[in-house]
């Protein structure tokens, strides 16, 4: 191998900062795509990535990692592992691919934005690797489900989801567009790489990889662990960006960017990871509850990282702690009830043993959320599964685009009022599920005010006919694609035969 150690020449690969002469700073770095927040150009040149890597090391490492993942998939795809996985785990994996695969590819476009509009050459290089990484993640996470399409037609949603207006996909796009695809380079470094990748996905992927191995899904486990090693590297673009902002006296900018995206990430996390951890993962494979996971990895470890950079907990911390007790239970209930509107087959995950576990992890669960399941279980046992299915629509939050669950939070004793938050802006009424969601909107009304939630679209006549079948068609769900109970109502106990596959 070449004799000079990387440390001797590395700085020469990233010192390409210069003063523009033939166009202006704003022409080269338009604020829409690169908001400097008033930090002078030369201050950005101090941007110093904590993780150093060269192109040569990158292609050598990545070639080996890709060979590993593809060879595992090549072997396991010929096995019957998928068919033998628990229905809950299968639901979690199908939901994951739909929500994440093509989104990761779009993160590559976001990384390319930082690689072009980042304000230091060192940063642009790191983001160039990030672009390649996310291309990898988009391609791996479509390739693997593609190979298994014959076994699992629902894997079509790994590719199709982002072309649809399925409500969860609208919520995911609304979040991810704000976070990276339609974000400027500087905000993205704080919001995508620091807040989301360092705070949420990095840890989630570690957790999911471990759960996958326990559930026997070695293919998914190998995939997720390999992806996580890339994320751990390119997520480190946030730290130096925070340091530059802080040094320039702009810590408040970093704090604000963090606060807004932390809440937004929490909401999607509460939906997807919440039901995956507490309801879909088979009981015997669970290592911790969603709340314990949030407490340990996000609230403690990630908070320590904020503090290292002079940032503080977001102002809504008490509300976050409150929501951790109940929001994901409400989302799970909603997803199960509106199961025809999702592309996976939700499992209830509330058999007797699961309920015991839920009560232990969330004292009071049986007396609050358990009651809804009691009613649904009774309806199923009485031979009326149709009563566990929706005929109307929920109210949707104009910020997170997820159903407003304040009545459930109120009924469970966690909120003082069942009412949503409402804002009038330019003559239009906007509804929010929580005070921070309302605040996110009010911080950037020009970005969000013109957007219509799926319920706004229904009321505006975009969705015809304005009923459940019309909405399902609008969401891209054919009758055979609509979610059904993933265990054929096994959770409800002895069920009349006619109820099965209803």
């Amino acid at each position, binding site marked *: 191998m070449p004799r000079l150690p990387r440390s001797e020449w590395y700085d020469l*690969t990233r010192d390409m900062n210069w003063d523009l002469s033939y166009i202006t700073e704003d022409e080269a770095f338009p604020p829409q795509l690169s908001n400097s927040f008033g930090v002078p150009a030369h201050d950005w040149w101090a941007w110093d990535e904590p993780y150093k890597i060269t192109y040569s090391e990158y292609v050598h490492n990545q070639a080996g990692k890709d060979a590993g993942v593809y060879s595992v998939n090549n072997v396991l795809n010929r096995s019957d592992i998928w068919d033998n996985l628990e229905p809950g785990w299968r639901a979690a994996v199908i939901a994951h691919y739909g929500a994440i695969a093509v989104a990761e590819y779009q993160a590559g476009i976001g990384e390319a934005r930082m690689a*072009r509009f980042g304000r230091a050459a060192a940063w642009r290089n790191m983001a160039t690797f990030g672009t390649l990484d996310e291309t990898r993640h988009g391609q791996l996470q479509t390739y693997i489900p593609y190979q298994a399409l014959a076994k699992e037609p629902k894997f079509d949603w790994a590719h199709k989801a982002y072309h649809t207006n399925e409500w969860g996909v609208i919520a995911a796009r609304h979040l991810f567009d704000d976070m990276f695809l339609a974000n400027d380079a500087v905000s993205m470094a704080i919001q995508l790489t620091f807040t989301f990748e360092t705070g949420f996905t990095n840890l989630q992927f570690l957790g999911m990889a471990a759960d996958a191995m326990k559930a026997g899904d070695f293919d998914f486990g190998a995939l997720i662990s390999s992806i996580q090693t890339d994320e751990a590297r390119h997520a480190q673009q946030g730290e130096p960006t925070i340091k530059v902002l802080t040094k320039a006296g702009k810590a408040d900018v970093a704090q604000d960017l963090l606060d807004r995206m932390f809440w937004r990430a929490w909401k999607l996390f509460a939906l997807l990871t919440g039901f995956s951890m507490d309801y879909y993962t088979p009981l015997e494979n669970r290592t911790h509850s969603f709340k314990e996971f949030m407490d340990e990895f996000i609230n403690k470890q990630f908070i320590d990282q904020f503090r290292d950079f002079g940032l503080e907990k977001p102002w809504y911390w008490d509300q976050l702690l409150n929501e951790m007790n109940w929001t994901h239970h409400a989302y799970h209930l909603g997803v199960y009830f509106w199961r025809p509107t999702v592309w996976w087959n939700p499992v209830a995950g509330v058999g007797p043993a699961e309920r015991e576990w839920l009560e232990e992890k969330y004292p009071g669960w049986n007396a609050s959320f358990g009651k809804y399941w009691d009613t649904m279980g009774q309806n199923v046992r009485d031979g009326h599964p149709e009563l566990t299915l929706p005929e109307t629509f929920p109210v949707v939050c104009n910020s997170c685009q997820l159903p407003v669950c304040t009545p459930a939070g109120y009924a469970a004793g966690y909120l003082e009022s069942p009412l949503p938050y409402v804002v009038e802006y330019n003559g239009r009424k906007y509804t929010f599920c929580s005070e921070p969601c309302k605040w996110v909107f009010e911080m950037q009304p020009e970005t969000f005010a013109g957007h219509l939630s799926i319920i706004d679209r229904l009321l505006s006549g975009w969705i015809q006919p304005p009923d459940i079948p019309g909405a399902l068609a609008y969401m891209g769900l054919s009758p055979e694609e609509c979610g*059904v109970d993933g265990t054929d109502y096994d959770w409800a106990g002895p069920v009349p035969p006619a109820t099965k596959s209803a």
Partner: protein
Amino acid sequence: MATRERKAPKTWSLLGDVKRRPSVYEVTASQFAYHFRREPAPFEMSPDAPINEWYLTHREGSVFNVDDWEGYRDPAKLTYSDYVMLQHDRETYLDGLIDHHESASSVESLSPEWVSTLTNAVVPLRFPLHIMQMTALYVAQMAPTAFIINASNFQAADEMRRVQRLAYLTKWLANAHGESIASTDAARAAWEKGEAWQPMRKALEELLGVYDWGEAFAALDLVIKPAIDSLLGDSLAALAAENDDELLALLLAEFHRDAERSKDWTAELVRYAVANNPALAEVLSTWVAAWTPAADALVSSYATLLPGADTAAVVTAAAKARADLLAASGL
């Protein structure tokens, strides 16, 4: 369950009823740019949010458009995995090349005159090459299909590859011939103030300010990059060989392989675009004509940094490189 009763699909449902089973390259890129021409706006926010307007103006609104970009294929048909496997092999080759020349102390034995040429003409190159990396990433983030996005992203990574090997060489030169060769300030001063570099800097800075995705593609990939690639791959490589610098000649030959891959996907994109919208031939030719004087100026100015090189030959080589690419593109 309902899902088990369906017929096994042949491919992604969005690809329709295909006769041929699509390749891995195709199924891991087809229709990934779902936001292109999405209604009412590319991104899930206010349709008139600034970034929506940016894309609607510079991508959907570009005159460089056809009805369907999804039929385009990069001739190299590279997935991410293919790209890193390919470059892993090529970097292994370069590692071996450098090992050999380190053992032979090749850089240590270069003549002072040639070291001076390298200092003036090669060391500052990391600045313009980095701007070409940036611009390729702009084209990528604005392109209407993943088949173009990926090709342009890999091209940007190739530019970084070239910058990094030249950075290594710079340090090696500095260790052998004087620390000042590796001075950032000296390289930046040459780039910002050196007379011979100014036409190149002017062209590349102006290219940074081009935001129509079609013009950014045409200016970079049909005009400016081929000119700079010719300077390195044709003229500088030949001069290196004449000055017994086999290492640099072979490094540049290796980078030329990457440049050829860029030309291949570029020419194919032009052919595809014109085949689908014949009016684009004139659009592209107009952009080429608009950027050609800048390319010619940077070539003849850079030639003055190459003592012993025949300026006319340098200019001719670059002109031929452009003409060949335009011919291959059908323009």
